[in-house]
């Protein structure tokens, strides 16, 4: 593409991402927007970032301003739409957002030549439906959505299925689902035996209906973002759809908290590195990605963030320093566990609009 191309008023008109001249060789910096607390910390610094700067001479401007996929998208969309630089060279978006970004032509293909370590990508993540061959994205962290519960409030019961979550009278009015559609609806779909890779509009609508019924019956008290953690910990929420990383953290405080990955399956999500259109330091960004695809480096990160590492060999690297963590099935899931994980398929624009609308009608109704 050409940087001088006039910004078009209608989005989506350009499906080929715009690229800017790469200043990587002259400016030894890379701007990375990431989620909060998604990076190892020691003494007020990020050791792996410092090490990267030391090793390559590239300074990472690490900005923890990616708080929410939708909000972040709303913030950068007008810039991307009008063909302007977002000021960021790389960020980490969740799978479905990556799908949208690719669809809209807002992200650039990765130059794998600069990322030799990309081969360390975990096998389960190499071929995702929304980005075949991983040409635009590489996962940064992954996790599962399952069912978290607080035995204090369930009356000692464990919650093992979505069906129980949505219908067990013991949980009535003390259940929360996530506002993350693909996790909340995904779990219900899986429960119904639907594969997330092939989900149809009818199946989706049926799942929505199940949730709507539960909501109308007063079973569901709310749909939450990350703020589900506090009520779960205190017992104000008895059971909810929850993410692995959070539960690992919560359990450190409160070991009695339960977490189930339903037998029928559960969702797997990843937050993925992508390089936005018009990024100024694409090559530096790719070097950065490459750096984190070194298992030893990823192990350092993992020791802090407790999510699922997408890099092969991380578990081995971590075993030396922290064997308990290395043996945690939620951080380093076994192959058997991974086999049950599903990823929501990429949606067409129309599907995305329709599904989201249905789901939001439920959330804000």
């Amino acid at each position: 593409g050409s940087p001088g191309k006039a910004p078009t008023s209608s989005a989506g008109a350009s499906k080929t991402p715009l690229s800017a001249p790469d200043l990587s060789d002259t400016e030894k910096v890379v701007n990375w927007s990431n989620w909060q607390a998604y990076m190892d910390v020691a003494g007020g610094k990020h050791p792996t970032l410092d090490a990267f700067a030391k090793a390559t001479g590239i300074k990472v401007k690490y900005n923890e301003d990616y708080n929410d996929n939708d909000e972040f998208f709303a913030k950068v969309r007008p810039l991307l739409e009008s063909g302007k630089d977002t000021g960021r060279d790389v960020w980490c978006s969740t799978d479905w957002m990556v799908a949208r970004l690719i669809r809209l032509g807002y992200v650039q293909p990765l130059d794998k030549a600069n990322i030799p370590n990309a081969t360390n990508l975990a096998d389960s993540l190499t071929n995702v439906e929304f980005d075949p061959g991983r040409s635009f994205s590489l996962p940064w962290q992954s996790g599962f959505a399952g069912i978290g519960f607080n035995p204090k409030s369930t009356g000692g019961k464990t919650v093992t299925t979505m069906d129980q979550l949505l219908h067990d009278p013991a949980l009535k009015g003390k259940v929360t689902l996530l506002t993350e559609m693909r996790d909340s609806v995904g779990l219900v779909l899986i429960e119904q035996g639907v594969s997330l890779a092939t989900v149809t509009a009818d199946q989706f609508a049926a799942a929505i209906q199940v949730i709507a019924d539960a909501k109308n019956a007063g079973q569901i008290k709310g749909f939450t973002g990350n703020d589900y953690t506090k009520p779960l910990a205190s017992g104000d929420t008895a059971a909810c759809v929850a993410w692995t990383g959070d539960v690992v953290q919560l359990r450190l405080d409160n070991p009695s908290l339960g977490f189930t990955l339903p037998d029928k399956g559960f969702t797997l999500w990843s937050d993925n590195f992508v390089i936005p259109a018009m990024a100024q330091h694409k090559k530096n960004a790719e070097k950065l990605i490459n750096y984190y695809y070194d298992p030893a480096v990823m192990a350092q990160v993992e020791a802090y963030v407790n999510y699922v590492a997408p890099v092969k060999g991380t578990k081995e690297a971590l075993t030396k320093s922290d064997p308990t963590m290395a043996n945690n099935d939620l951080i380093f899931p076994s192959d058997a566990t991974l086999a049950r994980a599903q990823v929501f398929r990429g949606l067409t624009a129309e599907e995305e609009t329709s599904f989201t609308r249905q789901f939001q009608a439920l959330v804000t109704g």
Partner: protein
Amino acid sequence: MRWLRKNLIVIIGLLVMAYILIPNIVVVVFSFNKPAGHYNYEWSQFSLDAWLDPCGAPGMCDALGLSLWIGIASATISTIMGTMAAFALGRYRFIGRSFTNLLVFFPMATPEVVMGASLLTLFISMGLESGQTTILIAHILFTVSFVITTVKARVASLDPALEQAAADLYATPAQTFWKVTFPLVAPGIGAGALLAFALSFDDYIVTNFNAGATTLTFPMFVWGASQRGTPVQINVIGTVMFLGAVAIVGIAQAIGARRRKVDA
């Protein structure tokens, strides 16, 4: 009984004050927590760790600094502009006054998401790069209405005789303003400035839209952090800000009192 009647208002006032401050107390308590994980929800054990390392959460102190500076700058500017406008609206009658009043209410009635997004679109079409400037502009925009409304109430009830007395004593309008009007309206302006600062310092939604890649404000930091667990340092900052404000006021008053004593 008599005592109760005389001090009833004090008792109620203190109770309401307590209502306002209870959450702060929770925040203070948890600033001494040492959570086992990232989440600072459950009391785990007493520790001074966070206090000894208040900037231990990377980026937080930078974000705090930015928020403070933006809060002070935007409160200052919007207080000045808002006070001026409040005087015009509270005191003069002119064509378009009702419309102007309306215009003042509109920004307060606009949902923040919408305001943030439309501002972003505007900035982009103006070619303004997101960053401190855009945050500042946005903050002034949504705080100025609050200042106007607060100050106007005070201006409206000002006794004009005093300003006339000043004019009679050779004070130009500007001098009248600074020497008589301002001191008398000061509580209103002070309240407006406090509101403006508070709104600016605590805003997330509008700010998030208009912040640049490297301008992370404190609320953005907290919001983001809460997605993965809130560091104890956030509570420390809350406590420090809280106690700091109290200390500043206390010291200022002590100095004022001493000066008065020296004067007398």
